[in-house]
């Protein structure tokens, strides 16, 4: 039921590979802590790979938004990679699809960061 996060660096961008559920409680807190830690270390260009995120609730959506604004407030960028259909649909319903920079291709996503 919980979420797993693994971190890797590609060309100056930190990629968080998320899998599982981002929901109230564990998943949302894990994501918040991971992003806070990165920003605290000065890693401000973050790509969240959501390919293996099969479920996200309103708390998880809120956490994505908070992570996005936290990165932006520190002069960085947070982008989303490879949304599942369910997550894609939820971001459309909530009008967040236009807020986030969403990519399907990892190399293209990495190249799109301006601060690398």
């Amino acid at each position, binding site marked *: 039921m919980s979420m797993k996060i693994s971190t890797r660096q590609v060309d100056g961008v930190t990629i968080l590979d998320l899998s599982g559920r981002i*929901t109230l409680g564990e998943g949302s807190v894990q994501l918040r802590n991971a992003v806070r830690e990165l920003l605290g270390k000065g890693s401000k260009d973050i790509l969240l790979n959501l390919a293996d995120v099969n479920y996200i609730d309103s708390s998880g959506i809120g956490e994505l938004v908070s992570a996005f604004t936290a990165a932006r407030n520190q002069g960085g960028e947070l982008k989303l990679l490879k949304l599942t259909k369910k997550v894609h649909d939820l971001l459309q319903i909530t009008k967040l699809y236009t807020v986030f920079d969403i990519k399907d291709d990892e190399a293209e996503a990495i190249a799109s960061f301006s601060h690398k």
Partner: protein
Amino acid sequence: MVSRFSYTLDSSLDSVNKVEEAAEQLAQKSGLDEDQTFQLTMAVREAAVNAVLHGNAYDPEKKITASFENNGSSLIIRISDQGNGLDPATLPDPLAPENLLSGSGRGIFLIRSFMDEVHFKLLHPGTELTLVKHLDSTQKSA
């Protein structure tokens, strides 16, 4: 044939998960397809989160109740808490430009997006949310 079951549960995340599982079982037994099952399950989960988090504020002295009913033409799910009461008219619009980057406030919106009917009732104390999903002709016979 009407089928109905209900739970009275602690104000915890475990309860939210239990209510979510019950909603998924109801949806599957009632013949909803995968997308409809996802939508119903998510709406019920959001209602349970509201009851536990915003209604009862995780108070161990307060309970939530969840009832599930298939009356042959609709699925009716009622989630209630013992909190201060929720006035839906006071909820900000999460799609408004000034709220778009808010870190919260999308739960009720998603419930309304996914259900055919949503009703609020003040219980003094608490709030009862009634979520209704109409069944089509094939699902009615499921």
